[in-house]
């Protein structure tokens, strides 16, 4: 047969036990039950027990309530008052169990009935007594900790029940209300605050109770004659151990300094944003001004350049015309000689005359360029001027064969121009168109009246105009289209530059379009050259009507 297992013995080795028992038999029994693992100090009276505790450290006191120098609960009370830190296990007889139970109520950790305990029970009771005492101590410390927090934090803290009656208020809150805790507990907000404010607090509480959630807000208060103050409020529901809502609790604190700081920060931020906007506006203005200055500077440079070129051109023209005049007279002399009609003299004379004519054309161009002069504007018939100009260039259109197509709008209002100068413009443009078609082609001349859109009123790339047109202005437009090779895009912007030409050597002076543009600008008109989508190029000349 297997031996019965040894009962579980709670381990209490090394425990220092003070055994206060005046009955030797009971004491002996207890010492036996305690066993050798415990360090037992045995005394017979309360006085001896207290003295022993003053001299040595104990983990537990086994206390008989009925001693020779003290009896009943007084024994416990006296011991406790002097050594409250010690766990006490009260021992009683069968007849005084009720007193033992009362002792537990008064702070003893447990009681044991003599004669009804065994080794296991004793050790278990001792261990539980020590642990309970330790738990009580921890609880007290914890309570002290929270008490310290609640009372010392610079916040106002309170609790209310479901009816909105205060169940707790920390010292700071009580001081603010000017009441003691006893005067606060059981009262409602209505007892301390003006009705409107109390109503608001109750509504907030109600919201917390209904939602079961945290409620947070910043409240404003303006004390009479004072500045506005701000309070940060956090309210939350209070639950019991079953999770039922049993009230609300709140914590609030003064955030006036913070809110004022934030307000200042917001204002500073707004000021900064305004300053930034002002700065951006100023920057934009500056950029616009810079753009205008740059544009003006370019115009001045352009004008200076033109002026210098003009002066140079006039000087060159004068100096070259005199030797040309000599050569001209010389050629004329040989033209009248008897051999002039025979070859090769006839060819030589003709070539010389052509060369003279070409040189003279260049010089004339230079003079035209250098003397833009003034324009005498008079109403004229645009179509008639164009027909007259076409007549002037008819020799350019014969070889190679160029077909001329006219799409002239009849009943145009008079154009306000200097007729001779505008004819020079048309002759230049028509000649250019003819030269662009060395293999022949079609030259189309078109006129019409139109009302300018805002986009058209702006200067477009490749166009130059001294006076901007207005949107909605009625203008007369002349278009000259050719079916030639067009102008390469990289050269399109340069066609109005002096001495720039796309023609072969000897064909162009590079001044035709420069002079043309100059004349058009004198008329406050515009000219621009563009390539046509299919082939060829278009010159568009926009002039003002008589009424402008």
């Amino acid at each position, binding site marked *: 047969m297997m031996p019965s297992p040894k009962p579980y013995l709670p381990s209490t080795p090394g425990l220092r036990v003070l055994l206060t028992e005046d009955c030797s038999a009971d004491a002996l029994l207890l010492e036996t039950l305690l066993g050798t693992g415990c360090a037992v100090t045995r005394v017979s009276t309360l006085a001896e027990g207290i003295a022993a505790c003053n001299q040595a450290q104990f983990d537990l006191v086994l206390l008989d309530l009925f001693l020779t120098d003290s009896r009943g609960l007084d024994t416990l009370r006296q011991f406790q008052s002097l050594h409250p830190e010690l766990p006490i296990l009260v021992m009683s007889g069968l007849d005084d169990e009720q007193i033992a139970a009362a002792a537990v109520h008064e702070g003893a950790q447990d009681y044991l009935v003599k004669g009804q305990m065994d080794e296991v029970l004793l050790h278990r009771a001792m261990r539980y007594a020590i642990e309970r005492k330790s738990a009580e101590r921890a609880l007290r410390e914890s309570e002290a900790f929270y008490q310290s927090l609640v009372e010392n934090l610079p916040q106002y803290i309170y609790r209310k029940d479901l009816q909105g009656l205060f169940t707790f208020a920390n010292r700071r809150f009580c001081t603010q209300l000017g009441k003691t805790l006893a005067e606060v507990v059981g009262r409602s907000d209505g007892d301390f605050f003006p009705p409107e404010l109390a109503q608001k607090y109750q509504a907030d509480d109600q919201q917390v109770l209904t939602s079961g959630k945290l409620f947070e807000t910043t409240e404003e208060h303006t004390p009479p004659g004072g500045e506005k103050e701000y309070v940060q409020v956090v309210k939350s529901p209070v639950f019991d151990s079953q999770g039922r809502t049993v009230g609300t609790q709140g914590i609030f604190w003064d955030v006036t300094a913070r809110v004022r700081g934030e307000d200042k920060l917001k204002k500073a931020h707004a000021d900064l944003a305004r300053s930034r906007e002002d700065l951006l506006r100023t920057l934009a203005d500056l950029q616009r001004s810079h753009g205008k200055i740059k544009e003006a500077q370019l115009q001045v440079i352009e004008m200076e350049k033109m002026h210098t070129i003009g002066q140079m051109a006039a000087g060159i*023209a004068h100096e070259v015309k*005199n030797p040309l*005049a*000599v050569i001209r*007279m010389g050629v004329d002399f040989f*033209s009248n000689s008897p051999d002039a009609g025979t070859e090769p003299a006839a060819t030589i004379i003709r070539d010389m005359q052509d060369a003279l004519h070409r040189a003279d054309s260049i010089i*004339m161009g230079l*003079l*035209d360029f250098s003397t833009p002069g003034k324009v005498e504007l008079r109403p004229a018939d645009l179509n008639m001027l164009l027909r007259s100009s076409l007549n002037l260039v008819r020799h350019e259109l014969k070889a190679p064969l160029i077909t001329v197509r006219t799409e002239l709008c009849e009943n145009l209002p008079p154009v306000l121009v200097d007729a*001779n100068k505008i004819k020079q413009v048309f002759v230049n443009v028509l000649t250019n168109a003819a030269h662009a078609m060395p293999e022949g082609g079609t030259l189309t001349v078109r006129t019409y009246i139109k009302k300018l859109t805002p986009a058209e009123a702006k200067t477009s790339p490749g166009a130059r105009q001294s006076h901007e047109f207005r949107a909605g202005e009625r203008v007369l437009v002349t278009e000259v289209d050719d079916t030639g090779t067009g102008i390469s895009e990289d050269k399109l912007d340069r066609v109005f530059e002096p001495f720039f030409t796309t023609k072969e050597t000897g064909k162009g002076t590079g001044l035709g379009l420069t002079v043309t543009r100059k004349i058009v600008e004198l008329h406050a008109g515009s000219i621009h050259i563009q390539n046509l989508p299919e082939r060829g190029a278009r010159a568009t000349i926009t002039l003002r009507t008589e009424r402008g």
Partner: protein
Amino acid sequence: MEQKRILIIDDESTFTRMVRINLEQTKRYVVREENRALHALASAHEFKPDLILLDVIMPGADGGEIASRIRADNALKHVPVVFLTATVSRHEAADGKFTGGYLFLPKPVSLKALVECMENVLAAKKHEQTQAEVKKPAA
């Protein structure tokens, strides 16, 4: 046929020589060259021209000044003056503008154009004189 006397005043001696040779080749003109602007009036007094061809820009005195002095001179004021200038532009020349009562011809001028112009001016002058004589009462 009576040869007309032409005085050409221009600082460009090669040009005046060319004009002289060309005009004299026609046998219709006797030409005198004057290349010094400051001697223009003296030459005119001495040569007694029927027509003066006058350059505009010359060193010493410009054509405008010389023309004014001719107009102010009793012996010369009836002599027509035609300006030959290198400064006139295409349109000014094409219009054959008279400025201050003078005709301008642009350089380089062709012999044909020059002769035509001179003949017109001389014919107009002759016509003017004829008219004046007709109006003159018999002595």
